[in-house]
Protein backbone atom coordinates (compact mmCIF):
# COMPACT_ATOMS: atom_id res chain seq x y z
CA UNK A 1 0.00 0.00 0.00
CA UNK A 2 2.76 2.38 1.01
CA UNK A 3 4.67 1.56 -2.16
CA UNK A 4 1.58 2.29 -4.28
CA UNK A 5 0.95 5.64 -2.60
CA UNK A 6 4.60 6.60 -3.03
CA UNK A 7 4.35 5.61 -6.69
CA UNK A 8 1.31 7.85 -7.18
CA UNK A 9 3.20 10.66 -5.51
CA UNK A 10 6.20 10.14 -7.83
CA UNK A 11 3.93 10.12 -10.89
CA UNK A 12 2.34 13.37 -9.77
CA UNK A 13 5.81 14.93 -9.51
CA UNK A 14 6.53 13.86 -13.09
CA UNK A 15 3.25 15.46 -14.21
CA UNK A 16 4.21 18.59 -12.30
CA UNK A 17 7.31 18.96 -14.47
CA UNK A 18 5.44 17.94 -17.61
CA UNK A 19 2.93 20.74 -17.03
CA UNK A 20 5.67 23.30 -17.49
CA UNK A 21 5.81 22.63 -21.22
CA UNK A 22 3.24 25.40 -21.64
CA UNK A 23 2.21 28.38 -19.47
CA UNK A 24 -1.46 27.33 -19.64
CA UNK A 25 -0.85 23.83 -18.29
CA UNK A 26 1.80 24.90 -15.80
CA UNK A 27 -0.54 25.93 -12.99
CA UNK A 28 -2.25 22.54 -13.04
CA UNK A 29 1.23 21.02 -12.93
CA UNK A 30 2.04 22.92 -9.78
CA UNK A 31 -1.15 21.62 -8.17
CA UNK A 32 -0.15 18.06 -9.12
CA UNK A 33 3.15 18.67 -7.37
CA UNK A 34 1.41 19.88 -4.22
CA UNK A 35 -0.96 16.89 -4.16
CA UNK A 36 2.01 14.56 -4.68
CA UNK A 37 3.78 16.10 -1.71
CA UNK A 38 0.71 15.87 0.52
CA UNK A 39 0.32 12.16 -0.36
CA UNK A 40 4.01 11.54 0.36
CA UNK A 41 3.85 13.23 3.76
CA UNK A 42 0.61 11.58 4.91
CA UNK A 43 1.71 8.16 3.70
CA UNK A 44 4.85 8.47 5.80
CA UNK A 45 2.85 9.63 8.82
CA UNK A 46 0.84 6.39 8.57
CA UNK A 47 3.95 4.28 9.27
CA UNK A 48 3.63 2.23 12.46
CA UNK A 49 6.92 3.58 13.80
CA UNK A 50 5.80 7.19 13.39
CA UNK A 51 4.06 8.23 16.58
CA UNK A 52 5.09 11.73 17.54
CA UNK A 53 2.49 13.57 15.51
CA UNK A 54 2.56 16.71 17.66
CA UNK A 55 6.26 17.31 17.32
CA UNK A 56 6.23 16.61 13.58
CA UNK A 57 3.13 18.75 13.09
CA UNK A 58 4.75 21.61 14.96
CA UNK A 59 7.94 21.25 12.89
CA UNK A 60 5.94 21.35 9.65
CA UNK A 61 3.98 24.39 10.85
CA UNK A 62 7.14 26.28 11.83
CA UNK A 63 8.91 25.46 8.59
CA UNK A 64 5.79 26.07 6.53
CA UNK A 65 5.18 29.47 8.14
CA UNK A 66 8.76 30.58 7.49
CA UNK A 67 8.68 29.29 3.92
CA UNK A 68 5.32 30.88 3.12
CA UNK A 69 6.32 34.18 4.67
CA UNK A 70 9.48 34.37 2.57
CA UNK A 71 7.84 33.17 -0.64
CA UNK A 72 4.99 35.68 -0.40
CA UNK A 73 7.22 38.62 0.46
CA UNK A 74 10.09 38.12 -1.96
CA UNK A 75 10.60 40.56 -4.83
CA UNK A 76 10.69 38.86 -8.21
CA UNK A 77 14.06 40.45 -8.94
CA UNK A 78 15.46 38.60 -5.91
CA UNK A 79 14.36 35.19 -7.17
CA UNK A 80 17.87 33.89 -7.92
CA UNK A 81 19.01 34.45 -4.35
CA UNK A 82 15.83 32.89 -3.01
CA UNK A 83 16.31 29.77 -5.10
CA UNK A 84 19.93 29.52 -3.97
CA UNK A 85 18.85 29.85 -0.34
CA UNK A 86 16.22 27.13 -0.78
CA UNK A 87 18.79 24.81 -2.35
CA UNK A 88 21.01 25.22 0.67
CA UNK A 89 18.14 24.04 2.88
CA UNK A 90 17.62 20.87 0.83
CA UNK A 91 21.34 20.14 1.19
CA UNK A 92 21.26 20.72 4.91
CA UNK A 93 18.12 18.62 5.34
CA UNK A 94 19.87 15.77 3.51
CA UNK A 95 22.78 16.00 5.95
CA UNK A 96 20.43 15.89 8.94
CA UNK A 97 18.48 12.94 7.60
CA UNK A 98 21.72 11.05 6.95
CA UNK A 99 22.91 11.88 10.47
CA UNK A 100 19.61 10.73 11.92
CA UNK A 101 19.89 7.45 10.01
CA UNK A 102 23.41 7.01 11.30
CA UNK A 103 22.43 7.58 14.95
CA UNK A 104 19.25 5.49 14.80
CA UNK A 105 19.66 2.92 12.04
CA UNK A 106 16.93 0.71 13.51
CA UNK A 107 14.26 3.31 12.68
CA UNK A 108 15.30 3.06 9.03
CA UNK A 109 15.77 -0.69 9.00
CA UNK A 110 19.39 -0.51 7.93
CA UNK A 111 21.03 -2.36 10.82
CA UNK A 112 22.04 -1.53 14.39
CA UNK A 113 24.31 1.16 15.84
CA UNK A 114 27.90 0.12 15.20
CA UNK A 115 26.91 -2.54 12.69
CA UNK A 116 25.10 -0.70 9.93
CA UNK A 117 25.06 -2.44 6.56
CA UNK A 118 28.04 -1.51 4.41
CA UNK A 119 25.94 -0.51 1.39
CA UNK A 120 23.86 1.81 3.58
CA UNK A 121 26.99 3.39 5.01
CA UNK A 122 28.35 4.12 1.54
CA UNK A 123 25.05 5.56 0.34
CA UNK A 124 24.65 7.54 3.54
CA UNK A 125 28.08 9.11 3.30
CA UNK A 126 27.64 9.96 -0.38
CA UNK A 127 24.29 11.59 0.42
CA UNK A 128 25.93 13.51 3.24
CA UNK A 129 28.83 14.58 1.04
CA UNK A 130 26.60 15.90 -1.76
CA UNK A 131 24.17 17.45 0.73
CA UNK A 132 26.92 19.33 2.54
CA UNK A 133 28.43 20.61 -0.72
CA UNK A 134 25.00 21.74 -1.89
CA UNK A 135 24.51 23.52 1.42
CA UNK A 136 27.72 25.54 1.52
CA UNK A 137 27.88 26.10 -2.24
CA UNK A 138 24.36 27.51 -2.19
CA UNK A 139 25.06 29.70 0.83
CA UNK A 140 28.00 31.23 -1.03
CA UNK A 141 25.99 31.57 -4.25
CA UNK A 142 23.28 33.29 -2.21
CA UNK A 143 25.86 35.71 -0.81
CA UNK A 144 27.20 36.51 -4.25
CA UNK A 145 23.74 37.03 -5.75
CA UNK A 146 22.54 39.10 -2.82
CA UNK A 147 25.67 41.22 -3.03
CA UNK A 148 26.80 40.47 0.54
CA UNK A 149 29.88 38.85 -0.97
CA UNK A 150 31.65 40.29 -4.00
CA UNK A 151 30.43 38.73 -7.23
CA UNK A 152 33.98 38.82 -8.57
CA UNK A 153 35.58 35.43 -9.04
CA UNK A 154 38.20 34.73 -6.38
CA UNK A 155 41.10 32.75 -7.75
CA UNK A 156 44.31 31.66 -6.13
CA UNK A 157 47.20 29.42 -6.97
CA UNK A 158 46.76 25.64 -7.03
CA UNK A 159 43.04 26.12 -6.49
CA UNK A 160 41.97 23.14 -8.55
CA UNK A 161 44.77 20.97 -7.19
CA UNK A 162 43.66 21.77 -3.64
CA UNK A 163 40.04 20.96 -4.49
CA UNK A 164 41.09 17.68 -6.05
CA UNK A 165 43.17 16.76 -2.99
CA UNK A 166 40.27 17.59 -0.67
CA UNK A 167 38.01 15.43 -2.80
CA UNK A 168 40.43 12.50 -2.56
CA UNK A 169 40.67 13.05 1.18
CA UNK A 170 36.88 12.85 1.46
CA UNK A 171 36.88 9.55 -0.42
CA UNK A 172 39.51 8.28 2.00
CA UNK A 173 37.37 9.42 4.93
CA UNK A 174 34.32 7.66 3.49
CA UNK A 175 36.29 4.41 3.26
CA UNK A 176 37.44 4.88 6.84
CA UNK A 177 33.88 5.64 7.93
CA UNK A 178 32.53 2.50 6.30
CA UNK A 179 35.16 0.44 8.13
CA UNK A 180 34.87 1.81 11.66
CA UNK A 181 31.49 3.64 11.66
CA UNK A 182 32.82 6.35 13.93
CA UNK A 183 30.67 9.46 14.55
CA UNK A 184 33.82 11.60 14.61
CA UNK A 185 34.62 10.61 11.04
CA UNK A 186 31.03 11.19 9.97
CA UNK A 187 31.17 14.79 11.18
CA UNK A 188 34.62 15.27 9.67
CA UNK A 189 33.14 14.31 6.32
CA UNK A 190 30.38 16.87 6.87
CA UNK A 191 32.80 19.67 7.78
CA UNK A 192 35.24 18.99 4.95
CA UNK A 193 32.46 18.68 2.40
CA UNK A 194 31.13 22.05 3.54
CA UNK A 195 34.60 23.49 3.01
CA UNK A 196 34.78 21.95 -0.46
CA UNK A 197 31.39 23.45 -1.35
CA UNK A 198 32.71 26.94 -0.56
CA UNK A 199 35.92 26.36 -2.51
CA UNK A 200 34.04 25.10 -5.56
CA UNK A 201 31.81 28.17 -5.86
CA UNK A 202 34.38 30.81 -4.85
CA UNK A 203 36.11 31.13 -8.26
CA UNK A 204 32.83 31.53 -10.17
CA UNK A 205 31.84 35.05 -11.12
CA UNK A 206 28.50 36.85 -10.96
CA UNK A 207 27.26 36.37 -14.52
CA UNK A 208 28.11 32.66 -14.45
CA UNK A 209 25.59 32.33 -11.66
CA UNK A 210 22.85 30.89 -13.89
CA UNK A 211 25.07 27.86 -14.37
CA UNK A 212 25.95 27.61 -10.70
CA UNK A 213 22.36 27.95 -9.53
CA UNK A 214 21.29 25.21 -11.96
CA UNK A 215 24.20 23.05 -10.92
CA UNK A 216 23.31 23.36 -7.25
CA UNK A 217 19.72 22.57 -8.22
CA UNK A 218 21.07 19.38 -9.74
CA UNK A 219 23.18 18.57 -6.67
CA UNK A 220 20.20 18.96 -4.35
CA UNK A 221 18.49 16.29 -6.45
CA UNK A 222 21.44 13.90 -6.29
CA UNK A 223 21.60 14.42 -2.52
CA UNK A 224 17.96 13.36 -2.25
CA UNK A 225 18.83 10.34 -4.39
CA UNK A 226 21.68 9.38 -2.07
CA UNK A 227 19.32 9.47 0.89
CA UNK A 228 16.77 7.52 -1.17
CA UNK A 229 19.28 4.72 -1.68
CA UNK A 230 20.15 4.73 2.02
CA UNK A 231 16.51 4.31 2.96
CA UNK A 232 15.72 2.07 -0.05
CA UNK A 233 12.95 4.54 -0.81
CA UNK A 234 11.93 4.64 -4.47
CA UNK A 235 10.02 7.90 -4.12
CA UNK A 236 13.17 9.70 -2.99
CA UNK A 237 15.24 8.04 -5.71
CA UNK A 238 12.78 8.97 -8.47
CA UNK A 239 12.29 12.55 -7.31
CA UNK A 240 15.99 13.04 -6.73
CA UNK A 241 16.76 11.77 -10.22
CA UNK A 242 14.13 14.07 -11.77
CA UNK A 243 15.55 17.10 -9.98
CA UNK A 244 19.12 16.05 -10.69
CA UNK A 245 18.39 15.63 -14.39
CA UNK A 246 16.54 18.93 -14.52
CA UNK A 247 19.40 20.88 -12.95
CA UNK A 248 21.94 19.16 -15.18
CA UNK A 249 20.01 20.02 -18.34
CA UNK A 250 19.58 23.64 -17.25
CA UNK A 251 23.33 23.87 -16.56
CA UNK A 252 23.98 22.48 -20.02
CA UNK A 253 21.62 24.96 -21.70
CA UNK A 254 23.17 27.85 -19.80
CA UNK A 255 26.75 26.88 -20.64
CA UNK A 256 25.81 26.45 -24.27
CA UNK A 257 24.31 29.94 -24.19
CA UNK A 258 27.80 31.19 -23.37
CA UNK A 259 29.60 28.78 -25.70
CA UNK A 260 31.53 27.37 -22.79
CA UNK A 261 31.72 23.89 -21.38
CA UNK A 262 30.32 23.23 -17.94
CA UNK A 263 33.85 22.26 -16.88
CA UNK A 264 35.11 25.66 -18.00
CA UNK A 265 32.43 27.46 -15.95
CA UNK A 266 33.02 25.28 -12.91
CA UNK A 267 36.76 25.87 -13.02
CA UNK A 268 35.82 29.54 -12.91
CA UNK A 269 37.87 32.68 -12.91
CA UNK A 270 36.20 33.98 -16.07
CA UNK A 271 36.12 37.76 -16.52
CA UNK A 272 38.36 38.29 -13.53
CA UNK A 273 40.62 41.17 -14.36
CA UNK A 274 38.68 43.30 -16.78
CA UNK A 275 38.92 46.72 -15.17
CA UNK A 276 42.37 47.73 -16.36
CA UNK A 277 42.07 46.67 -19.96
CA UNK A 278 38.62 48.12 -20.57
CA UNK A 279 38.34 50.30 -23.64
CA UNK A 280 42.03 50.95 -24.06
CA UNK A 281 42.08 51.15 -27.83
CA UNK A 282 38.66 52.68 -28.17
CA UNK A 283 39.22 55.84 -26.17
CA UNK A 284 39.53 57.90 -29.36
CA UNK A 285 36.40 56.53 -31.00
CA UNK A 286 33.28 58.60 -31.05
CA UNK A 287 30.16 57.59 -29.23
CA UNK A 288 26.84 59.05 -30.23
CA UNK A 289 24.97 60.00 -27.13
CA UNK A 290 21.28 60.68 -26.89
CA UNK A 291 18.59 61.45 -24.36
CA UNK A 292 15.08 60.23 -23.67
CA UNK A 293 13.48 62.58 -26.22
CA UNK A 294 15.77 61.32 -28.99
CA UNK A 295 14.90 57.76 -28.10
CA UNK A 296 11.19 58.54 -28.02
CA UNK A 297 11.44 60.23 -31.42
CA UNK A 298 13.35 57.35 -33.01
CA UNK A 299 10.96 54.71 -31.72
CA UNK A 300 7.81 56.69 -32.48
CA UNK A 301 8.81 56.83 -36.13
CA UNK A 302 9.57 53.13 -36.39
CA UNK A 303 7.32 50.28 -37.48
CA UNK A 304 8.92 47.66 -35.33
CA UNK A 305 10.89 47.64 -32.10
CA UNK A 306 12.62 44.70 -30.44
CA UNK A 307 13.46 45.15 -26.79
CA UNK A 308 16.49 43.24 -25.47
CA UNK A 309 16.49 43.16 -21.66
CA UNK A 310 19.42 42.05 -19.54
CA UNK A 311 20.47 41.86 -15.93
CA UNK A 312 20.72 45.67 -15.76
CA UNK A 313 16.96 45.87 -16.20
CA UNK A 314 16.48 43.60 -13.20
CA UNK A 315 18.90 45.60 -11.06
CA UNK A 316 17.12 48.85 -11.89
CA UNK A 317 13.66 47.22 -11.47
CA UNK A 318 12.84 48.78 -14.82
CA UNK A 319 10.42 46.11 -16.07
CA UNK A 320 7.22 48.01 -15.22
CA UNK A 321 8.37 51.28 -16.76
CA UNK A 322 9.60 49.30 -19.76
CA UNK A 323 6.22 47.62 -20.24
CA UNK A 324 4.50 51.01 -20.03
CA UNK A 325 6.80 52.25 -22.77
CA UNK A 326 5.97 49.18 -24.85
CA UNK A 327 2.24 49.75 -24.34
CA UNK A 328 2.40 53.31 -25.64
CA UNK A 329 4.39 52.21 -28.67
CA UNK A 330 1.90 49.44 -29.37
CA UNK A 331 -0.94 51.94 -29.16
CA UNK A 332 0.86 53.94 -31.84
CA UNK A 333 0.64 50.87 -34.05
CA UNK A 334 4.26 49.88 -33.64
CA UNK A 335 5.10 46.20 -33.37
CA UNK A 336 6.84 45.61 -30.04
CA UNK A 337 8.51 42.34 -29.12
CA UNK A 338 11.04 41.18 -26.56
CA UNK A 339 14.12 39.07 -27.28
CA UNK A 340 15.55 36.96 -24.46
CA UNK A 341 19.05 35.54 -24.54
CA UNK A 342 19.36 32.19 -22.72
CA UNK A 343 21.83 33.57 -20.19
CA UNK A 344 20.23 36.97 -19.63
CA UNK A 345 19.83 37.58 -15.91
CA UNK A 346 21.07 35.56 -13.00
CA UNK A 347 19.01 32.39 -13.31
CA UNK A 348 17.42 30.45 -16.17
CA UNK A 349 14.23 32.19 -17.29
CA UNK A 350 14.85 35.19 -15.02
CA UNK A 351 13.91 37.81 -17.64
CA UNK A 352 10.72 35.96 -18.61
CA UNK A 353 9.48 36.05 -15.02
CA UNK A 354 10.25 39.75 -14.63
CA UNK A 355 8.47 40.64 -17.86
CA UNK A 356 5.54 38.46 -16.89
CA UNK A 357 5.45 40.26 -13.55
CA UNK A 358 5.17 43.55 -15.42
CA UNK A 359 2.21 42.10 -17.36
CA UNK A 360 3.97 41.67 -20.67
CA UNK A 361 1.97 38.98 -22.53
CA UNK A 362 4.20 35.93 -22.94
CA UNK A 363 3.40 35.72 -26.66
CA UNK A 364 5.45 38.88 -27.16
CA UNK A 365 8.48 37.43 -25.38
CA UNK A 366 10.64 35.34 -27.71
CA UNK A 367 13.74 33.22 -27.35
CA UNK A 368 16.97 33.79 -29.25
CA UNK A 369 16.37 31.28 -32.06
CA UNK A 370 12.76 32.37 -32.47
CA UNK A 371 13.52 36.02 -33.07
CA UNK A 372 17.11 36.32 -34.24
CA UNK A 373 16.28 36.19 -37.95
CA UNK A 374 13.85 39.11 -37.49
CA UNK A 375 16.47 41.71 -36.57
CA UNK A 376 17.32 42.63 -40.20
CA UNK A 377 13.63 43.52 -40.73
CA UNK A 378 13.48 45.52 -37.54
CA UNK A 379 13.91 49.25 -37.34
CA UNK A 380 14.89 49.75 -33.73
CA UNK A 381 16.57 47.47 -31.20
CA UNK A 382 16.17 48.78 -27.69
CA UNK A 383 18.85 47.16 -25.54
CA UNK A 384 18.28 47.71 -21.85
CA UNK A 385 20.79 46.46 -19.31
CA UNK A 386 22.33 43.89 -21.65
CA UNK A 387 25.74 44.06 -23.28
CA UNK A 388 27.78 40.93 -23.94
CA UNK A 389 24.81 39.07 -25.41
CA UNK A 390 24.67 41.63 -28.25
CA UNK A 391 28.41 41.92 -28.91
CA UNK A 392 29.25 41.13 -32.56
CA UNK A 393 32.81 40.31 -31.47
CA UNK A 394 31.39 36.93 -30.50
CA UNK A 395 31.04 36.22 -34.22
CA UNK A 396 34.02 38.02 -35.69
CA UNK A 397 36.86 38.23 -33.20
CA UNK A 398 38.44 34.86 -32.61
CA UNK A 399 40.64 36.26 -29.88
CA UNK A 400 37.68 37.48 -27.86
CA UNK A 401 36.83 35.55 -24.69
CA UNK A 402 33.21 35.49 -25.81
CA UNK A 403 34.02 34.20 -29.32
CA UNK A 404 31.47 31.63 -30.46
CA UNK A 405 28.81 32.63 -27.97
CA UNK A 406 25.41 32.88 -29.67
CA UNK A 407 24.34 36.53 -29.69
CA UNK A 408 21.23 38.50 -30.48
CA UNK A 409 21.89 40.17 -33.84
CA UNK A 410 20.82 43.66 -32.81
CA UNK A 411 23.50 45.12 -35.10
CA UNK A 412 21.42 44.02 -38.07
CA UNK A 413 18.51 46.28 -37.19
CA UNK A 414 18.44 49.77 -38.65
CA UNK A 415 19.26 51.51 -35.43
CA UNK A 416 20.23 50.44 -31.95
CA UNK A 417 19.43 52.21 -28.70
CA UNK A 418 21.60 51.20 -25.75
CA UNK A 419 20.41 52.02 -22.26
CA UNK A 420 23.45 51.78 -19.98
CA UNK A 421 24.71 53.38 -16.84
CA UNK A 422 28.16 54.04 -18.28
CA UNK A 423 30.61 52.95 -20.95
CA UNK A 424 31.85 50.14 -18.71
CA UNK A 425 32.36 46.75 -20.30
CA UNK A 426 30.05 43.86 -19.65
CA UNK A 427 30.80 40.90 -17.47
CA UNK A 428 33.21 39.37 -19.94
CA UNK A 429 35.39 42.48 -19.81
CA UNK A 430 35.14 42.85 -23.58
CA UNK A 431 34.49 46.19 -25.18
CA UNK A 432 31.42 46.28 -27.39
CA UNK A 433 32.14 47.74 -30.85
CA UNK A 434 28.42 48.34 -31.32
CA UNK A 435 28.70 51.38 -29.05
CA UNK A 436 30.80 53.16 -31.67
CA UNK A 437 28.67 52.47 -34.72
CA UNK A 438 26.89 55.24 -36.61
CA UNK A 439 23.45 53.75 -36.13
CA UNK A 440 23.89 53.29 -32.39
CA UNK A 441 22.69 55.83 -29.87
CA UNK A 442 23.82 55.48 -26.29
CA UNK A 443 21.31 56.44 -23.60
CA UNK A 444 23.26 56.88 -20.39
CA UNK A 445 21.41 56.65 -17.12
CA UNK A 446 19.44 54.45 -14.79
CA UNK A 447 17.34 52.00 -16.81
CA UNK A 448 14.13 52.69 -14.90
CA UNK A 449 14.55 56.48 -14.99
CA UNK A 450 15.30 56.32 -18.71
CA UNK A 451 12.15 54.31 -19.47
CA UNK A 452 10.04 56.69 -17.41
CA UNK A 453 11.51 59.68 -19.24
CA UNK A 454 10.86 58.04 -22.60
CA UNK A 455 7.27 57.37 -21.53
CA UNK A 456 6.92 61.07 -20.66
CA UNK A 457 8.31 62.18 -24.01
CA UNK A 458 6.13 59.70 -25.87
CA UNK A 459 2.95 60.84 -24.21
CA UNK A 460 3.85 64.55 -24.47
Amino acid at each position, binding site marked *: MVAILYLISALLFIF*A*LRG*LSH*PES*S*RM*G*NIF*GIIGMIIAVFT*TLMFKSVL*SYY*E*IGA*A*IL*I*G*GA*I*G*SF*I*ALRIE*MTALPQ*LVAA*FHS*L*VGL*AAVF*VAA*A*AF*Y*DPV*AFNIGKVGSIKI*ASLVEMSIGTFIGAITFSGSVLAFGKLQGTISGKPIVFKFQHLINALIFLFIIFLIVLFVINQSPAIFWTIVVISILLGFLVVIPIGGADMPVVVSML*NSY*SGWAACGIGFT*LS*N*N*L*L*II*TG*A*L*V*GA*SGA*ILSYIMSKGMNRSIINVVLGGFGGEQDSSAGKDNSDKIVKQGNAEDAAYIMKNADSVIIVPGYGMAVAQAQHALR*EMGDILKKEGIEVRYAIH*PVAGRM*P*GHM*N*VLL*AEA*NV*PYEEVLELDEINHDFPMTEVSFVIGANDVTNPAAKTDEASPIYGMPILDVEKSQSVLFVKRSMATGYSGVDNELFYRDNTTMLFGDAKKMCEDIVKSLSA
Partner: protein
Amino acid sequence: MEAHSSEVFVIGLTVFFLACIIGYYVVWSVTPALHSPLMGVTNAISSVIIVGAILAAGPQGFDTSKIFGLIGVVLASVNIFGGFLVTYRMLSMFKKKPKKSKEKE
Protein backbone atom coordinates in the same frame (compact mmCIF):
# COMPACT_ATOMS: atom_id res chain seq x y z
CA MET B 1 14.72 -9.02 3.26
CA GLU B 2 18.02 -8.78 5.11
CA ALA B 3 19.51 -11.46 2.89
CA HIS B 4 18.68 -9.73 -0.34
CA SER B 5 20.18 -6.33 0.28
CA SER B 6 22.10 -6.46 -3.00
CA GLU B 7 18.86 -7.17 -4.80
CA VAL B 8 17.25 -4.15 -3.12
CA PHE B 9 20.13 -2.05 -4.31
CA VAL B 10 19.79 -3.24 -7.89
CA ILE B 11 16.08 -2.45 -7.85
CA GLY B 12 16.94 1.00 -6.55
CA LEU B 13 19.49 1.43 -9.31
CA THR B 14 16.96 0.35 -11.94
CA VAL B 15 14.45 2.88 -10.65
CA PHE B 16 17.18 5.51 -10.56
CA PHE B 17 18.22 5.14 -14.19
CA LEU B 18 14.66 4.93 -15.49
CA ALA B 19 13.80 8.07 -13.53
CA CYS B 20 16.85 9.86 -14.97
CA ILE B 21 15.64 9.03 -18.48
CA ILE B 22 12.11 10.23 -17.74
CA GLY B 23 13.59 13.37 -16.21
CA TYR B 24 15.69 13.94 -19.30
CA TYR B 25 12.74 13.87 -21.69
CA VAL B 26 10.32 15.73 -19.45
CA VAL B 27 12.73 18.56 -18.74
CA TRP B 28 13.67 19.06 -22.38
CA SER B 29 9.99 19.56 -23.11
CA VAL B 30 9.81 22.47 -20.66
CA THR B 31 9.54 25.77 -22.49
CA PRO B 32 12.56 28.04 -21.84
CA ALA B 33 10.24 30.83 -20.69
CA LEU B 34 9.33 28.68 -17.69
CA HIS B 35 12.83 27.72 -16.61
CA SER B 36 12.56 29.80 -13.44
CA PRO B 37 9.31 28.13 -12.32
CA LEU B 38 10.98 24.81 -13.19
CA MET B 39 13.66 25.58 -10.62
CA GLY B 40 10.97 26.51 -8.14
CA VAL B 41 9.08 23.24 -8.60
CA THR B 42 12.16 21.03 -8.59
CA ASN B 43 13.26 22.80 -5.46
CA ALA B 44 9.94 22.08 -3.79
CA ILE B 45 9.75 18.43 -4.82
CA SER B 46 13.36 17.68 -3.91
CA SER B 47 12.20 18.44 -0.37
CA VAL B 48 10.38 15.12 -0.49
CA ILE B 49 13.42 14.24 1.59
CA ILE B 50 11.03 15.21 4.39
CA VAL B 51 9.92 11.57 4.21
CA GLY B 52 13.26 10.51 5.66
CA ALA B 53 13.13 13.28 8.24
CA ILE B 54 9.65 12.18 9.40
CA LEU B 55 10.83 8.60 9.82
CA ALA B 56 13.69 9.84 11.99
CA ALA B 57 11.41 12.08 14.03
CA GLY B 58 8.73 9.40 14.34
CA PRO B 59 9.62 7.35 17.42
CA GLN B 60 8.46 8.51 20.83
CA GLY B 61 10.91 9.94 23.33
CA PHE B 62 13.83 12.22 22.63
CA ASP B 63 17.23 11.22 21.30
CA THR B 64 19.84 12.65 18.92
CA SER B 65 18.30 11.02 15.90
CA LYS B 66 14.87 12.44 16.64
CA ILE B 67 16.22 15.96 17.04
CA PHE B 68 18.03 15.66 13.71
CA GLY B 69 14.84 14.38 12.17
CA LEU B 70 12.79 17.29 13.50
CA ILE B 71 15.35 19.81 12.22
CA GLY B 72 15.14 18.04 8.86
CA VAL B 73 11.34 18.34 8.90
CA VAL B 74 11.54 22.08 9.59
CA LEU B 75 14.12 22.70 6.83
CA ALA B 76 12.26 20.61 4.29
CA SER B 77 8.94 22.30 5.17
CA VAL B 78 10.43 25.73 4.56
CA ASN B 79 11.29 24.50 1.10
CA ILE B 80 8.05 22.73 0.37
CA PHE B 81 5.83 25.67 1.27
CA GLY B 82 8.28 28.26 -0.04
CA GLY B 83 9.01 26.39 -3.26
CA PHE B 84 5.41 25.69 -4.24
CA LEU B 85 4.21 29.16 -3.24
CA VAL B 86 6.89 31.05 -5.11
CA THR B 87 6.26 28.85 -8.15
CA TYR B 88 2.55 29.59 -7.85
CA ARG B 89 3.32 33.32 -7.76
CA MET B 90 5.54 33.06 -10.83
CA LEU B 91 3.05 30.98 -12.79
CA SER B 92 0.10 33.20 -12.00
CA MET B 93 2.00 36.01 -13.73
CA PHE B 94 2.13 33.94 -16.91
CA LYS B 95 -1.66 33.94 -17.19
CA LYS B 96 -3.10 35.05 -20.51
CA LYS B 97 -3.85 38.72 -20.10
CA PRO B 98 -7.37 39.92 -20.84
CA LYS B 99 -7.07 42.34 -23.77
CA LYS B 100 -7.40 45.67 -22.04
CA SER B 101 -3.90 46.63 -21.06
CA LYS B 102 -4.04 49.68 -18.81
CA GLU B 103 -6.53 52.42 -19.38
CA LYS B 104 -4.09 55.28 -19.59
CA GLU B 105 -4.89 57.86 -22.19
